[in-house]
């Protein structure tokens, strides 16, 4: 019996395609038209635009850039080659990313397709989950709560090995960074208070999954309890807003987070600030004379950041803007809006949970943020270093940079409040940052 090679079998199968020559030509030309029309249309659009620049051709700039990187790099040929390669690789990645985002195809189809997927199939995207009753949840928040214990030794080790020659590995253990920071501050006579802000899905699991009810307790990552225990054992003060917010839900059944945004509602933030102020008064004696702050309600309407992440077409009504009332804080004497005071005894390091309702560019109003509310409830000035995102290290890094420049932000401080989103416990780079 003849034994056919795999190549022979393949040739026989392929060679026997039953297709009319007319259809074969039509399919070929149809396919070539489909894949050729997209770049041609894109180039035509770009050439007719104001800039007149064809983006796809900009990749050729990568070669002289890499050559320049090689020539200007320090070290021997090997190191220079690595630098040039890294530059080229970065350029390729930026190019591909820009091609995707400026693509006519993407701009035409993405929003419409996503709207159909969300409206009729309940689908989010790579950054968002669609929960119940059109509530949106930030994926990293859900992954943090649902995922493996963030202090699991094997997981910490895996995370610590994720770096390569282009990207450094993260320092994955939050305890090391927090305890180190606590010790550095204690050496300066400053108390550290850590405020890990819970995620929306943690406090409202019933709005995400039918397996939970409004009475369900907060759902946390399994390592959260271990973290709190280890921090307290090391003498770090922890203020966990979960209990405060859970109480509020139990009291009035009102959501503590915005429907289509990652952040808490103004009332949840104010409630947390009020209770934190109570704790601070018990933990820290303030020697400064207070200031008198007053609050004025202001109505704000804005589209949630998760709704924006969905990249839906403008004017979509599936996730309409939300309207909230924020309490704007001002100084009673001057009537001026709240401002950070660098001689304050309190320093707040915060992320977007502190910035929302404070930083006007976030679109949720200003002068009504976490630092402002703390000031109001303590009737004390507060100084703040606030940066959206990377709560694990960004504000400590900014603090260290200020100190290095000779700006002694810590002078006169009795307490540093470090607020960060709890998802950073699973995902953040908890760099150990020495303070000058």
């Amino acid at each position: 019996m003849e034994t056919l090679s795999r190549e022979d079998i393949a040739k026989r199968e392929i060679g026997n395609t039953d297709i009319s020559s007319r259809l074969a030509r039509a399919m070929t030309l149809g396919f070539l038209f489909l894949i050729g029309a997209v770049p041609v249309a894109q180039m035509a659009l770009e050439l007719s635009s104001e800039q007149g620049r064809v983006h796809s051709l900009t990749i050729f700039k990568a070669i002289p850039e890499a050559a320049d990187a090689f020539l200007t790099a320090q070290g021997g040929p090997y190191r220079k080659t690595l630098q040039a390669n890294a530059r080229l690789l970065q350029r390729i990645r930026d190019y591909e990313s820009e091609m995707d985002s400026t693509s006519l195809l993407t701009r035409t189809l993405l929003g419409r397709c996503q709207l159909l997927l969300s409206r009729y199939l309940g689908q989010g995207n790579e950054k968002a989950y669609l929960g119940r009753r059109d509530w949106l949840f930030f994926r990293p928040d859900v992954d943090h709560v649902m995922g493996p214990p963030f202090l699991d030794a094997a997981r910490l080790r895996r995370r610590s090995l994720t770096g390569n020659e282009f990207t450094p590995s993260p320092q994955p253990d939050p305890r090391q960074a927090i305890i180190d920071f606590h010790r550095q501050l204690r050496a300066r006579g400053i108390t550290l208070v850590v405020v890990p802000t819970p995620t929306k899905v943690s406090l409202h699991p019933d709005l995400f999954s039918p397996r939970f009810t409004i009475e369900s307790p907060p759902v946390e990552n399994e390592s959260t309890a271990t973290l709190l225990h280890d921090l307290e054992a090391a003498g770090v003060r922890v203020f966990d807003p979960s209990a405060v917010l859970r109480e509020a839900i139990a009291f009035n059944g009102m959501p503590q987070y915005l429907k289509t945004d990652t952040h808490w509602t103004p009332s949840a933030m104010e409630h947390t600030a009020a209770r934190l102020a109570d704790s601070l008064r018990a933990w820290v004696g303030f020697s400064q004379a207070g200031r008198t702050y007053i609050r004025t309600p202001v109505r704000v309407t804005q589209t949630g950041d998760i709704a924006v992440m969905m990249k839906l077409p403008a004017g979509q009504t599936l996730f309409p803007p939300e309207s909230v009332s924020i309490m704007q804080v001002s100084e009673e004497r001057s009537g001026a809006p709240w401002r950070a005071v660098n001689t304050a005894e309190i320093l707040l390091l915060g992320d977007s949970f502190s910035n929302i309702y404070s930083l006007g560019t976030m679109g949720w109003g200003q002068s009504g943020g976490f630092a402002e509310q703390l000031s109001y409830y303590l009737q004390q000035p507060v100084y703040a270093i606030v940066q959206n995102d990377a709560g694990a290290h960004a504000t400590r890094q900014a603090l260290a940079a200020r100190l290095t420049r000779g700006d002694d932000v810590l002078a006169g401080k009795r307490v540093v409040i470090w607020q960060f989103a709890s998802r950073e416990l699973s995902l953040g780079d908890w760099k150990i940052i020495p303070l000058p």
Partner: protein
Amino acid sequence: MVFSSHIFLFYFLPLALLLYFAVPNRGKHAMLTLTSYLFYGWANPLFVVLMLISTLIDYLCGLVISGQLGKGSSGPPGTLEKGGPRTSRQKAAVVLSICSNLALLGFFKYFNFATESYDAVVAALGLPGLDLDLAFRVTLPLGISFYTFQSMSYSIDLYRGDARAIRNFVDFACYVSMFPQLVAGPIIRFQEIADQLTFRTHTFEKFARGVAFLCMGLAKKILLANTCGKVADVVFGAAGASTLDAWYGIVAYAFQIYYDFSAYSDMAIGLGLMLGFVFPKNFDSPYRSQSITEFWRRWHISLSTWLRDYLYIPLGGNRKGARRTYVNLALVMILGGLWHGAAWTFLIWGAIHGVMLALERLGGKTSLYSGWPKPLRIALTFAIVCLAWVFFRADDIPHALRYLSALFGLSQVPDGARMAGAIIYQPYYLAGFSLAGLLAWFGRPTWDFTRRITPAKAALMLGLFVLSVVLLTTQSFNPFIYFIF
């Protein structure tokens, strides 16, 4: 550069096809090689140098093995006599080719694994480890597992007298680097393509068949693999799982890896056809297998035949007694597992399959349940394959053991993990999962489906291509699983 990406489909592919067909026949291989190097260098430009060095070594070794080095001749070189004597130079050349390829593979793929394993062992003994700086962590070049195996097959086939050497370096470089199958196979053995490098046809029928394969492959990836992959990622990424969730997750993973890998193979075959090449089949409805032995005749056929011909048979195959046969089977599968990844989980995955193959060999190459009804044989084989996939997918051995506990209801489910149900039981994922299952067991494989193309089928396939492209706009990054090998 990923096949299922905007930049590949609408920029690289049209450009590559345009350049390929624009040049005359004698320039096609050079053009294909250039575009393939551009394709490969897109992932990391430095790795192009590595592939070039590997190609050069194997090319020169090939000339030495075939006695062609330094000889100018217009005619094609002959094949060596099968089983005939070989000079020490020829032996040295084949050893050099094999060792250089294995050294490359060994260093780039297994250096990190070896150092981490060493550190783990000495740490358990209370001794200081190597604790190497991050600067010593080696990045795995894309496709190295594939092109090294491919290059080795060239040298070994020449040495055995199964193939004729290529005198033209460009032709050889084209064979090694050809972009359709460079990064994730199929592993194309030189003898499977040698004639086509000399002569092949370019016809509308072939191109249309290639379009059909590409469309089906892309649809499989976007509509089936990615959908099932999301379910698998959620369940495997959770802190725990109920029994139902765990089985749903592992079956979803089985579908994901099958559709993902067979999609890539389909697209590679389709692209090859567009360029006039005919690549062999790489998957043949593997989940319809009634035994593990049959599974390996249907799954990743290019790898299993490579392992059979270049490892199992040289080890003695089944010619050295029953006990040695079982050892050979287990060893080949363990090495096959390690080929997939430098981790103990891949080794265990390979070992499971090796043990099953040995047990089935003991029973006369049939399954242990061969007397059962056919649907049960298929179901049991699939269940065994799924249980082995747990090790393939898990992050590490403890994770795999926890997952296995969940499959058999032996573990608690933390509250956080209970949220997974809100995602994985959405109608969208259930529909995708169900369709994947239906097609895996009852659908017509791409090879059969595209054998006869009617206008309706052509419209369907192009329609699937358009649908896939539309959905692609909502997904920012779409790697294929086998890219990591």
